[in-house]
């Protein structure tokens, strides 16, 4: 169940054009087994919503020493609209309209809570995400 991930970076920031290329197959933590659970979705966050935990952002089920990779994109088209990304109470950075990130995602404990907030005043930001992870332990019937 292999998911192949390829990233290229190219830039004219130097006089000789720079190109970086990387490719990998997403694996479970410290194993050669492929990640097999994919969660994809989309949503919208408005500045008036304040800061919110993303749908996938409550790290309660996966636990420590498990692997997860997160793709997250701000689909806003107004270039002034951005989404602030926090890990619990620590600000990581901003995704402006059209910007995306691809990161290993800890999901170890509450400190890994993935929190988003649209800015500035009046901003409305659609977003999309894909979370690749190891199978979760199913919870008991309530």
């Amino acid at each position, binding site marked *: 169940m292999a998911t192949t991930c390829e990233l290229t970076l190219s*830039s004219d920031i*130097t006089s000789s054009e720079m190109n970086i290329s990387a490719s990998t197959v997403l694996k479970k933590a410290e194993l050669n087994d492929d990640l097999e659970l994919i969660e994809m979705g989309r949503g919208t966050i408005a500045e008036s919503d304040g800061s919110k935990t993303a749908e996938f952002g409550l790290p309660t089920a996966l636990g420590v020493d498990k692997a997860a990779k997160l793709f997250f994109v701000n689909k806003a088209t107004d270039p002034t609209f951005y989404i602030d990304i926090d890990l619990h109470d620590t600000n990581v950075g901003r995704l402006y309209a059209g910007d995306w990130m691809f990161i290993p995602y800890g999901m170890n404990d509450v400190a890994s809570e993935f929190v988003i907030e649209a800015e500035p005043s009046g901003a409305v930001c659609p977003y999309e995400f894909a979370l690749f992870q190891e199978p979760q332990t199913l919870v008991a019937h309530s």
Partner: protein
Amino acid sequence: MATLTPTLTLTSTDATTDQLSFSVTDQLSVTAPHIGLAKIAVTTVGANNIIQPATDGQTYYVYVKHTGVDASGSTVTTTCNVELTGDVVIGKLAAGEFMFMPVGGHSLGVQLQASSGTIVAEYAYFTKA
């Protein structure tokens, strides 16, 4: 002003019964300072492996790759934590894996920490114009 063009492609023919395939790209305006592709032998003390300086309100675009070898060139399967300075763990990279993300708007940098021994990592960062 320079442009950074990142492109990410995710494909799978068997992770799901319906084939997964998507690609996303972006055009980012960037400026100095920037670090082109660099290498670091990451140790087990994150504070000793700061690859991107603390921000002063600006945004950096950061790329990190776990090369899968240690400082002696031997293959390793240990993991490399990607952290904000102050030991705030973002996640861990296995051998061969990589990440790309914006960091900024605060006063933290980015550091790497090996789970044991050393891990050679490649990295680059660009400053948002």
